């Protein structure tokens, strides 16, 4: 029955390429975004085929969901007015085709040289796993072996939010006015879903230590719940006082800074987790990251300076 798996893989691969082609080459922008969202979902399927459930969770929530929402909202504001699509001149399209084809051929040649049977760092991780605080390979790599990557990643998220908030302060980015009147059906659904989202993201966070899941997936899910609430007119994030919002947004980086600061003072490496209590540290760190990711997600999509009350003076 091996043939069936290959058939499934090849069909997912072909579907991915077809959706990418559709998304890149349809004239209408909204159709292009719709195909991009479908592409994101099939991408999640590809991650499942590659036995990477963590990535499938993240891809479905981030790749298809969040990026799709951001694109649709930007397209609604930009394309609606301009409408006409600037079709690139044929000369430019030809040269770009040649360059891309050249790169593609070079990469295929390189791919043929990649050894088909190699374990990479799989054994090294498996041997060192018992020494870490978590049992799940991906989470141990993210928060123990390569914790510096994740530290920088939370800083990158903070940077994105700062840039977006600076633009919102200029009133350049009109916050989505959500003409949607909070219809009873929507608030009914949100009323039902909010607790489920909360419990499920808590579960995802906890499961991260021994099964697929973890801080980022839980954070994005929590963020999606936050967006749903904002949509239904329950303004949670946009009503936060500015100082509290800034605290929560930078919680991920602050958590890492606090942890690594104490480790350095204790004479250990920058992110060399201590043997005892490492598990609680990792869980605390994951909660901090999840909260900051959730707030970042909501701020990126809904925007946080929907000042309903007059701007209060900072102390």
């Amino acid at each position: 029955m091996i043939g069936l798996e290959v058939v499934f893989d090849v069909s997912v691969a072909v579907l991915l390429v077809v959706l990418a082609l559709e998304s890149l080459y349809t004239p209408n922008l909204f159709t292009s975004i719709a195909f991009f969202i479908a592409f994101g979902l099939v991408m999640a399927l590809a991650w499942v085929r590659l036995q990477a459930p963590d990535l499938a969770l993240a891809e479905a929530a981030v790749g298809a969901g969040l990026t799709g929402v951001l694109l649709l909202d930007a397209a609604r504001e930009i394309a609606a007015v301009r409408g006409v699509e600037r079709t690139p001149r044929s000369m430019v399209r030809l040269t770009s085709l040649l360059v891309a084809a050249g790169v593609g051929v070079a990469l295929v040649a390189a791919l043929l040289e990649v050894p088909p049977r190699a374990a990479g760092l799989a054994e090294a991780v498996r041997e060192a796993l018992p020494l870490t605080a978590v049992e799940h390979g991906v989470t141990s790599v993210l928060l123990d072996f390569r914790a510096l990557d994740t530290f920088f990643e939370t800083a990158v998220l903070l940077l994105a939010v700062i840039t977006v908030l600076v633009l919102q302060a200029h009133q350049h980015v009109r916050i989505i006015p959500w003409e949607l009147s909070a219809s009873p059906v929507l608030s009914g659904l949100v009323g039902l879903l909010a607790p489920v989202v909360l419990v499920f993201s808590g579960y995802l966070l906890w499961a991260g230590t021994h099964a697929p899941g973890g801080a980022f997936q839980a954070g994005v899910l929590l963020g999606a719940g936050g967006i749903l609430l904002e949509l239904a007119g329950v303004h949670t994030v946009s009503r936060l006082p500015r100082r509290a919002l800034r605290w929560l947004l930078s919680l991920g980086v602050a958590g890492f800074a606090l942890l690594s600061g104490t480790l350095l003072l204790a004479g250990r490496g920058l992110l060399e987790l201590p043997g005892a209590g490492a598990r609680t540290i990792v869980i605390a760190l994951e909660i901090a990251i999840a909260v900051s990711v959730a707030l970042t997600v909501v701020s990126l999509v809904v925007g946080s300076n929907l000042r309903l009350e007059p701007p209060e003076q900072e102390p």
Partner: protein
Amino acid sequence: MDTFLTFALTGVVLFSLGLQEVLARPGVLRMLIAVNVMGSGTLLFFVSLAHRHADGPDPVPHALALTGIVVTLAATAAGLALARGLHRLRAEGSGGRVEGGRVEGGRSQGAGYERGRSESGRDEQGRADR
């Protein structure tokens, strides 16, 4: 044609497709879509490398791809905010009053934020604040 080769090739194809569309310089939104397709292709290639061993995949590329997804999201979100900002400025520049956004005085025309700039509003505020 095992799983590794199938998805590695798809990664290469997606990367080249995205690169081709970016170099063709369509509108900003399409370029961001193309960049996301490129990113997905790159990460797909990276993770397919983890699947070349009989007993279980190598978790390192999975963790790196997760970081890659989050970094691509951050960059795309910043890009989209900039694109919307540029669009509104163009709309404002061409005289179209912007409904909804609070446009006070010369503020959104680009306050240089430098103390004592020529805009009158800026000077008092700066001096009052010292």
